[in-house]
């Protein structure tokens, strides 16, 4: 297939990019994205982005952590090497709560962070956008829309026109190196 390309347009304010993104969406574009220095509320609605699935990942991790914590203590102190300690039962669940809790939290945290990396496809150190010098300000004070060449409606000239029409400045065509 053709080389992977992107069209990038710059906007100055949150308001501009929210409305522009809305227009792009209603124009039927799907494979596009917004790049902003901070999350803008409303933008996600304009782009009709589905809710994050991260919560389920974390839940899974949490349950696993809980089971590992309790299971480990049950196996180690209760089964594998029984030791008579302070006259307590071998499986003294009252005493096993703190470690179980800690492991639940620990694994949940791993789920939350690495799950997010997974959903976002991070780390990804090379991306055509990052190569674009004008694009640098997306982490400072500028707002960008990028349309992927994979989008069925993508057309180098038409899309460029549309972007300029909806207020995009300094529209540029980037090619993956």
């Amino acid at each position, binding site marked *: 297939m053709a080389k992977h390309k992107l069209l990038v347009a710059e906007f100055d304010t949150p*308001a501009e990019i929210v409305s522009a993104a809305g227009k792009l969406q209603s124009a039927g574009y799907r494979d596009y994205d917004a790049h902003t220095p*901070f*999350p803008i509320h409303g933008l996600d609605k304009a782009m009709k982005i589905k809710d994050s699935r991260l919560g389920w990942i974390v839940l899974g991790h949490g349950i696993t952590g809980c089971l590992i914590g309790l299971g480990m203590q049950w196996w180690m102190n209760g089964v594998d090497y029984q030791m008579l300690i302070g006259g307590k039962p071998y499986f003294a669940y009252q005493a096993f709560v703190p470690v179980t809790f800690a492991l639940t939290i620990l694994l949940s945290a791993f789920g939350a962070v690495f799950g*997010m990396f997974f959903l*976002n496809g991070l*780390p990804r150190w090379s991306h055509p956008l990052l190569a674009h010098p004008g694009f640098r300000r997306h982490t400072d*004070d500028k707002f960008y829309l990028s349309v992927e060449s994979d989008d069925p409606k993508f057309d180098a000239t038409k899309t460029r026109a549309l972007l300029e029409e909806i207020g995009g400045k300094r529209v540029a065509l980037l090619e993956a190196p």
Partner: protein
Amino acid sequence: MSQINVMPDSALVVPPEAPHEKLVHGNHTFHDVTELVSEVTERKPELAWKICLALSVSVLGAFGAAVLYLIWSGTGIWGLQQPVGWAWDITNFVFWVGIGHAGTLISAILFLFRQKWRTSINRFAEAMTLFAVACALLFPGIHVGRIWMTYFLAPLPNQMGMWPNFRSPLLWDVFAVGTYGTVSLLFWYVGLIPDIATLRDRAKTKLRAMAYGVLSLGWRGSMRHWINYERSYMILAGISTPLVLSVHTIVSFDFATSVIPGWHTTIFPPYFVAGAIFSGFAMVVTLMVLARQLFGMKDLVTLDHLEKMNKIILLTGTLVGYAYAMEFFIAWYSGNEYEQYAFINRALGPYAWAYWTMITCNVISPQFFWFKRFRRSIPVMFALSILVNIGMWFERFVIIVTSLHRDYLPSSWGYFMPTIWDIAMFVGSFGLFFTLFLLFIRFLPMIAISEVKGVMPEASPHHGHHEGHGHGASIAAAEAR
């Protein structure tokens, strides 16, 4: 994960209500904020910073030497004895863990409570948390008699076929504090990613571009990423909240589950948590006051921020004072002669000097914050915040040493006196703390750039469109409903 569901619209980091007061002073644009924060990490380090670093590093060096000597000749170089088997070592541990609470607390709990003012200080506080926890973890590590055997604490298969004893509060500590350290690190790092990306994009030198490039994981501010990012941050905040409350609870179990009068107390968990928040906030104030002076961030970290912190110090300080009083009441009410003696001995015994130092610093000094004048006075809050930290160190000393030095059998009573090495280790740990801290403020954005931008009025997509129609945020609020 219940915390997630309580959020009306999880995609929003900035809740709809308008800020009651301007969180960022001066008419700064997004770019100004970026400049203000990033510039610190880019300009040539100023002399003051260099001197501080040199100082901290040399103290850290001394600390290292002291630890080596400790390992070489044994814990006997400390003043420890029978009956006082723990003294400064564990005091320092609890002290640092306590300080380590502010960061995650500010980040997590204030975040869930939508305290937007947190954005200017959370990064700073989280960093402080990490470094404090690092110091804390050192002490349980080096206080043992056979440091080279500490790996027995981990549930590793070994030639003895033995496992650690999960009934021991000390092992709970290992897991609780270990988890806390890890989660705080992740939380901190996740918050840093967009800002590191900012530094990456501003990088002038290849090295910076490389370093920040790698650390930012190729962050490109994608809205589709922000959605997951926000959720991740939210969840981290959600699980860190019970965690931060649990850590000091579990630390307090070291004492609460024992049989020693003065340790064996059910009030310890809440009392320790309050104390931890208390000392943590005090430490944040101490450092913030210095940092904002040093790096001219008065507009981002405003007096309002500091005043809010001081209010929390007043609250927690008073809580701690209540706990002190309650301990005495319960001791009397229990009718247990050993219990009663332990507390009378605390206030009137050989260590009365330590007890009253604690009361003065922790209970009396914060009361000044009832007055707005003092809450908003930089010198006063600076002095008080330091007093509070002194007091909180003494609190741990009093709990640990005065309970141990006179327990059940008068024949085995003793009096602990610190040696030069006890002092060296304590002072030394500050060397580690400040070294890490100075490196942090030099090489990483000490204020959460993207979050600050997020709470600026300009951040609202309706900003600037509706002049005359009242404040944009009210519409935003309407829209949210």
